[in-house]
């Protein structure tokens, strides 16, 4: 468990850093897929197996592929230099590091209460019940949102006549 946690975290952070550092946008997108796999691994360690599968299905199988597709359709100039930083590089670095310092300090100094570890309920059934009984309105709203997003994407992305 401990080895797996460090392995997945290391892969996740290394791939995410690679995504940001690489100047080739295609390499960035492919590295990002690897980091999404590592996130799915972390979900598995947290006993969220359903969520891990959804992560692979939606993030790796759809969103990341869609981003690669977008990169390929919007090529301009050399692909080797398609992912350059803008003039706010130092500001961004300082902000990100400062934010991380702040978050890390608050996380390490907080005493989280540790309730007794109970065995989790049967995962899929509990999630289904939460979706279709407790949060049914939000669930329907999400469905409508996705429908609107599909229609909007078609409308915006359509070839102008």
């Amino acid at each position, binding site marked *: 468990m401990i080895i797996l946690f460090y392995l997945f975290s290391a892969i996740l952070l290394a791939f995410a850093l690679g995504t940001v550092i690489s100047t*080739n946008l*295609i390499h960035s997108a492919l590295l990002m897929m690897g980091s999404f796999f590592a996130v799915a691994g972390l979900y598995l360690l947290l006993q969220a197996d359903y969520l891990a*599968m*959804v992560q692979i299905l939606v993030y*790796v*199988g759809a969103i990341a*592929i869609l981003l690669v597709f977008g990169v*390929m359709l919007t090529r301009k100039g050399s692909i080797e230099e398609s992912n350059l930083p803008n003039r706010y590089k130092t500001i961004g670095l300082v902000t990100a590091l400062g934010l991380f310092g702040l978050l890390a300090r608050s996380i390490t100094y907080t005493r989280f209460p540790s309730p007794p570890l109970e065995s989790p309920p049967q995962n*899929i059934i509990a999630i289904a019940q939460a979706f279709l009984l407790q949060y049914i309105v939000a669930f329907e709203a999400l469905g409508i949102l996705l429908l609107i997003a599909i229609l909007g994407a078609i409308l915006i992305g359509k070839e102008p006549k």
Partner: protein
Amino acid sequence: MTQFLFNFLALLHITGIIADVIVILCYFVFILLFIIINVMFIVWLERRMSAFFQERLGPNRVGPFGLLQSVVDAVKLLGKEVIRPTATDKWVFLLAPAICFVPALLLYPILPFGKGLVLVNLNIGLLYFVAISSTTTISIIMAGWGSNNKYSLLGGMRTVAQMISYEIPLIFSMIGIIMLVGSLNLVDIVNAQARLWFIHVQPLAFMIFLIASIAELNRAPFDLPEAEQELVAGYHTEYSGMQFAFFYLAEYANLFSLSILGVTLFLGGYQGPFFPSWIWFIGKVYAMIMVYMWIRWTLPRIRMDKMMKLNWKFLIPLSLFNILATGFMIKAWPTIQQWMR
């Protein structure tokens, strides 16, 4: 079998995490051998079947009925030089064939091959299958991009567009069955078909599954990604030798695993009278593969825009209707039964 392996290792004074690793490696080798032997056979079968459909003879010289032809071809491919064109994106190009084989391999442990013959009985097996098989597109887009060749890129982008689109009806066609069984566990799904195969309850879903899985496998009439007359060979134009063999192997491994899934979901899995369960299973799977081959060598390729139209304007609404009808019937069936009485 797992227990036997652990006992054997304990005999050699190997326990703990090392034993786990060795057992996992054994699984890996076992699955790999299983896939390779079956793929060899399927390739031979496909060549013989295509010859049959076109009134030729097909490979019939090496071994009995030409059975060893695939083995000879594989050895020939292994011996060939691996060529990397200079303008390629080096790591993407080299990694694509290796990565394309990973999802194909990961699919097999959860599939039930017979009564009690399943390596990992996963509770969310169907979802696992769908999720892992959706990652096949990564390697194809990598191959298409890394080759730095317009035919490869076109083929790769076509493949990805096609596979993402046809995944939707493929998954929707399974939802009816999930609603009937109330479980994502593949063994549960097989056991629920002890009396009635789901193809009788969900004929529409089976048709959608068949069409969508042909598109997922990039086989004719949906083989636009590698349309030889337009795109040379699609995303694996630039690959040679061993790397090409990997793509070929993964393609047929995916054909095999999707046939297994189709049999598990719609044709009663390993259920059947008289014979042992695994004989029924293998027989059904090969019958399903024969259907795929029959379709491939009978129908001509259709145009890209027509294929997309078929998916978005016909298959997806139809599969949504199927889900609605299934839900309605599940609720209404008890009432109808009361009326009948």
